[in-house]
């Protein structure tokens, strides 16, 4: 058992840290530190910097432009992005649709879509959830009817992050009516957002922000060649994608940053209260436990094990800790003290809902790990 980072890994960390410190635009760093919403251009500029360095796609195979890093290096890179106040890499193209295209798409699709995701020329968004289907994704009702060489898509997708910026959306749609299993007859289709019939409606969230949207698809015609994989095979690809998503949501390094900001806030507010310090300590300690849990998952991954249902813990506790930290910050600031604190608290209520609600994660743990 060797529970420390190797000298090579430490050197890698230093290299990444130095790169971010020198190359991340100052105005973006300041926005991140202040908790401001970013614009599309902020993401674009930063992704271009990483693209030019060859670091934009840590989890892609090397042949398609990935970095070839092992799980530990990917972890270090991701930590350093947080510690350096860099924006997260928008996952919809890089971490969601790209692995599906790589694993289940054809060569033509790979050649067409992957380079433009790498270069940030194309921004993507996901078209999974519908007004009638939340945790129960398989109940979706968006239809894609075959008409010659095209699909004609009709339906509504909702809670779609960054749809207002996206050039493309990947859509789960029914290509044949529900027969025995609701999971059958679903296909995974790529849609250009500029196609006639695609409209985006903003959804304002309770923190006053505009991150999510409703996307209406009305007689949207897309070529059949935009379907990834088999017709009716979409559920398999969707599940593959969701398992990838779960690992990415613990945000432990980001929590460490929030914790640092929290203790600074406490000092600014002159809170000399052992009870408050102990409440911080409780979260601090739990975060340490979760960070070490993440290392155990990573070590297993390095040893060749695919990330399993254990990653549900990371999602579940990670989001609980994020919420606990925003709550402590709001308590530190008090009511009406700082609008940004309240907004952050309101905004992060989403964390235990999205990417498989925490209730769904408990179902997964019970069924897949405890086998009940």
């Amino acid at each position, binding site marked *: 058992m060797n529970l420390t980072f190797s000298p090579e890994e430490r050197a890698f960390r230093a290299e990444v840290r130095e790169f971010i410190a020198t190359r991340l635009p100052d105005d973006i760093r300041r926005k991140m530190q202040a908790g401001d919403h970013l614009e599309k251009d902020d993401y674009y500029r930063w992704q271009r910097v990483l693209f030019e360095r060859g670091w934009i796609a840590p989890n892609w195979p090397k042949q398609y432009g990935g970095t070839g890093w092992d799980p530990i290096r990917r972890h270090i890179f991701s930590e350093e992005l947080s510690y350096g106040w860099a924006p997260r890499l928008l996952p919809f193209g890089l971490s969601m649709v790209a692995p599906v295209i790589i694993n289940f798409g054809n060569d033509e699709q790979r050649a067409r879509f992957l380079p433009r995701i790498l270069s940030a020329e194309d921004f993507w968004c996901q078209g999974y959830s519908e007004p*009638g289907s939340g945790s129960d994704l398989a109940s979706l009702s968006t239809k894609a009817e075959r008409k010659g060489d095209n699909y004609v898509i009709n339906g509504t997708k909702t809670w779609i992050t960054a749809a207002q910026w996206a050039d493309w959306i990947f859509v789960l749609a029914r290509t044949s009516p529900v027969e025995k299993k609701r999971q059958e007859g679903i296909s995974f289709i790529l849609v250009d957002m500029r196609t006639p019939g695609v409209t985006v409606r903003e*959804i304002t*969230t309770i923190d006053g922000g505009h991150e999510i949207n409703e996307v209406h698809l009305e007689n949207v015609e897309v070529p059949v060649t935009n379907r990834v994989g088999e017709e009716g095979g979409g559920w398999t690809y969707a599940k593959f994608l969701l398992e990838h998503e779960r690992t990415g949501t613990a945000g432990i390094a980001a929590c460490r940053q929030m914790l640092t900001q929290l203790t600074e806030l406490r000092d600014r507010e002159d*809170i000399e209260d052992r*009870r408050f310090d102990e409440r911080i300590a409780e979260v601090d300690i739990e975060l340490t436990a979760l960070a070490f849990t993440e290392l155990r998952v990573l070590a297993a991954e390095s040893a060749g094990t695919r990330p399993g249902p254990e990653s549900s813990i990371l999602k579940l506790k990670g989001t609980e800790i994020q919420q606990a930290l925003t709550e402590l910050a709001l308590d530190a600031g*008090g*009511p009406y003290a700082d609008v940004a604190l309240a907004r952050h608290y*309101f905004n992060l*209520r989403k964390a235990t*809902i999205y990417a498989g609600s925490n209730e769904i994660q408990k179902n997964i743990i019970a069924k897949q790990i405890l086998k009940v």
Partner: protein
Amino acid sequence: MDFTLSPEQVLLRDSVARFAASHPANGTRPDYWKTFAELGWLGVGAPEDVGGFGGPTETLLLMEQCGRGLVASPYVSQVVFAGSVLREAGRTDLLKQLVEGKRRFAVAYEEPHARYDPSRVDTQAQESAGGWTLHGTKIRVLDPSTADTYIVSARSRDEGVALFLVPATSANLERSAYPSEDGHDVAELRFDGVRLDRDALLVRAGDGLEVLEAGIDAATAALCAEALGLCTVMLETTVEYLKMRQQFGVPLSSFQALQHRMAEMYIELELMRSMAYFAAKTLEDETDPFARKRGISAAKAQIAKSGRFIGQQAIQLHGAIGMSEEYKIGHYFKRMSFVERLLGDRDYHLRRFVELTYSAPREAVAAAW
């Protein structure tokens, strides 16, 4: 021991409920002050000789309905809080004007870094020939924009805390007002040598703190009642939504884990209800400030905890739609988040309760219950 309402109480409750239902105020702040005055609501808790009626129980009934209807009005700050301070200060003349809706007062007592504690006052009142001069800063002043007069706590020499009446239009008074996330207006006030007449003194130095705390406690009890109304709606709405919302071919409400969560919300709601009534009873019965403070802190500490749980779970159980500004649950949640912390959060009231209970001689506590 009888929890049934008198016919007058039922009337009051129902008329506030009707008003709230027909004047939804999700996040905006319509100013229905004139209506309030006409309906007599500005006189709830005030003595009859100034046109008032009722007491803490009536305030509870009114505020619970305001909570249910998400009425964002300055009632707690300008009627309950300011009204209690004026009553304690023995100023029936001003109280009468308040009840008639002719004058409006906002209390400014909290200071930067005071963390809710009204005794941490750095604002200075210097006495001079013609009157007083104020220097200092007050934060989180509730609903200042519609008030014509501020009631301000300040230290006068070494004689303790006094309260002053400060015209909102005073020179050298800077107001940084901003709309809060829950539809109220809030301000920071800076007194940079504000000159006051001699009769601006509302409560003399040394007595100000007790008067102020009586007002804070009355307002806190009103917030407890508002919280009860907010949380009642949040639970009802959640139960309805989960019964209606289908997932996996069945209503969400058929999942046992969610049923138990709703049962836990219900339990917390009933504890809140008890403590909202307990707060009203405490105000009504306790002549001893020691016991009053202790009871109010117990109530607010419980309500802050239960309200936080109910609010967070209401959003969680709604799922994504709970995050949408278009849907009502988020507005109730946000208001509850502020009510939870206004005039003292759970930590503050727990500490106050501990200091009043375990640091005090045991006999005194036993007698106080």
